[in-house]
């Protein structure tokens, strides 16, 4: 068995928290601050893993299940996405659906774990999360369908195969549209500005953060790590689509992909540093715009 198949998963597992460090450092740079250490999330994770967890009496096993299922889903998702031109561990026709629904399952368990607490805050966050991701899913799927239509493959590793870079010469408009749509999905799904503010301490405005307020200790570490993995996999889908650099050497491609991920972290940091968050009421409009971009791409592929 070729150990290279584990490279995408290995990179995700090891480097996912680093991207958040890069985002934070970029934001700190724009704010004129030194910022937290690049590896802060790693420290946090180790700290949380050593702690005990507190459970409210009103919660059931669902509440404890949520973080674990979430982490497992995110880990499975990392085995589906290629990194650079390196094929992932699992690959079959239609794995893009499995990928989308693994993330869906992760969200579902985060949401019911939040509802399980019975807190009005968490209920509010859960309602917002499902509302927005239902719309984000449309944009994501239309983008994927366009990619399938362009490449006539339905598996990530086939879609992003070595010839993918050539698509940019022939179908650049479609690729730009799909890439932009994926960026909107990426920011929404990972609770970044302009959709959500990961730094806020105000429960009433939170979306994702408010749902995990009651989790503590290792559970919270699972959630943080799961979110970092989610950012990594969605980010690598975006990066593969937008900068499909293919040198011919697998290891060089992997290195390029890794550098692209760091650039992505910087870009997210710049977006967060230069614009305010959208009014909650406007978020669906942004997501519909994302869906519209994908739709236009799809229409263009039908020519």
């Amino acid at each position, binding site marked *: 068995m070729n150990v290279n198949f584990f490279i995408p998963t290995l990179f995700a597992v090891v480097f996912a928290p680093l991207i958040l460090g890069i985002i934070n450092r970029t*934001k700190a740079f*724009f*704010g*004129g*601050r030194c910022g937290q250490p690049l590896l802060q999330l790693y420290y946090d994770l180790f700290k949380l893993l050593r702690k005990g967890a507190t459970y409210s009496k009103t919660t059931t096993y669902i509440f404890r299940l949520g973080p674990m299922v979430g982490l497992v889903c995110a880990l499975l998702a990392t085995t589906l996405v290629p990194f650079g031109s390196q094929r992932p561990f699992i690959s079959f026709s239609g794995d893009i659906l499995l990928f989308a629904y693994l993330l869906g399952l992760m969200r579902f368990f985060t949401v019911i774990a939040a509802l399980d607490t019975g807190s*009005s*805050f968490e209920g*509010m966050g859960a*309602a*917002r999360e499902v509302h927005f991701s239902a719309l984000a899913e449309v944009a994501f799927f239309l983008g994927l369908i366009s990619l399938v239509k362009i490449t006539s493959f339905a598996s990530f590793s086939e879609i992003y195969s070595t010839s993918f870079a050539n698509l940019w010469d022939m179908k650049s408009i479609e690729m730009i549209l799909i890439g932009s749509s994926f960026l909107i999905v990426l920011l929404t799904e990972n609770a970044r*500005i*302009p959709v959500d*503010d990961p*730094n*806020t*301490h*105000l*429960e*009433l*405005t939170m979306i994702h953060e408010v749902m995990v307020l009651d989790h503590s200790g290792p559970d919270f570490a699972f959630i943080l790590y799961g979110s970092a993995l989610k950012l990594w996999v969605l980010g690598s889908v975006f990066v593969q689509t937008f900068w499909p650099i293919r040198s011919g050497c697998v290891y060089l491609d992997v290195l390029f992909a890794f550098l692209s991920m760091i650039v992505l972290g910087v870009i997210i940091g710049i977006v*967060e*540093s*230069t*614009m*305010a*968050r*959208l*009014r*909650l*009421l*406007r978020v669906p409009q942004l997501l519909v715009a994302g869906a519209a971009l994908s739709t236009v791409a799809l229409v263009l592929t039908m020519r």
Partner: protein
Amino acid sequence: MNLHSLSLRNSQSCSYKDVPVVSIEELKGTIVSCVQEGKRLLAFFAQSTGEKEMQLYAVLGNDKLGTLSLLSAKVENSYPSITDQCAQAHWFEREIAENWGISPKNHPWLKPIRFIPSYREGQDAWNRSKENILPCVGDYYQVQGEEIHEVAVGPVHAGVIEPGHFRFQCHGEWVYHLEISLGYQHRGIEKELKGGPTKRTLPYMETMAGDTSIGHSHAYLQMLESLANCQVSQRAQALRGIALELERLANHTGDLGALANDVGFLPTANYCGRIRGDFLNMSALLCGSRFGRNFLKPGGVAFDLEDSRIKEFQTKLENAKKDVTVAAELLLDSPSVLARFEDTGVVSKETARELGLVGVAARASGLSQDIRKDYPFGIFSSFSIPVAIYKKGDVFARAYVRWIEIQNSIAFIQSMLISMPKGKTQMPLSSLAPDKIVVSLTEGWRGEICHVAKTDEKGQFSWYKVCDPSFHNWMGLSMALRNQQISDFPLCNKSFNLSYCGHDL
């Protein structure tokens, strides 16, 4: 209608005998008609007469003429509520009911505002026993319906701020009503001030609302000086004015940063936090305390500003001005920020007037009221500052008014530093005149600060009443939230940035 009221100026001491005592019906009639004419109810409170009867005092202000009218009426345990015809009285009447057990009959929403036992033993407006008084426990205004849900926030807040309880009646993301319940910060300051002034009085004033040290102590000291008939030198007045405006600058800058932070706009959020510190350090340069504590003293100020320090001050101010201009313009020119600020938390001019809002919140709704111009005090009697008004009444308006005031205050301090008046910094203060009553007003950074006090035959305070701007404005926040999204609450709240301890006293 001024026939049966005592007309006086800001911090002018008058003989207590001249305060007219009218019937409660006439008091109500006067308040209602004066407010309809455009005057404002600055303070309305009860005090004990030592007998079974209680005395109600009302202070009305004519912003155009800069005159105050004072009148009073005697009541026992209840009287017809004024709120049904004059909404400005609603919070005052709740305070009266709570403090003295006097029930305003037909008050539309008679609830305690601080959840404290009555000052009169065994006389409670709700017949509660002392042990049963728990903060914020009681009925809340409720909206009924299938899909209505109630969200309770506080008293412990996510940020490191003061405690207060908020109840939202929501339909999905929409807020139909917000009820605010305070009282956690009650320390009983007004009770302690009785029998003063003592050594503790000034520190009490400075910590009444910790971010308004200069505002409150200025109001107290100008009252004291009026009672002792002490003329404070122009130089001391100028230094007091500089301290007051520095307090405004620091807080307004901090608020702009906090507003930016609440919409996730990092550049201004980060820079304003630092620039606020620069302004606080200028206060420290002035007197050694970043919050201006121990600077204002009876008869003047504790420290002078020598020429060498004026130079240093000017350089620091010039630098801070450059920085704050960049930060504020970046904030107010960014489309993504404007999309959040505009049309969020609108308080119409009519609502603002009816509720009697004061300060930044009132000016942002288009009401031209500023104590520095309407009832000039201290240095502002000889040096006027333009009133910053914006008409829209939304979060943007409140941010924009703050930005204009920052510019005005910097310009004021700069011109003061160029031509500092000469004179001694502190004058000796004689004992206070007996049997006098004074209304003292200042414009703190949040808005109008009103202190009313009466001296007894020995020249000590027989009572001392404080009305912080937050007391007027909390209901404004409630109104701003109507038909808004609940996720915009933190933003609206920050745009008012009211004091909990200033309200709770």
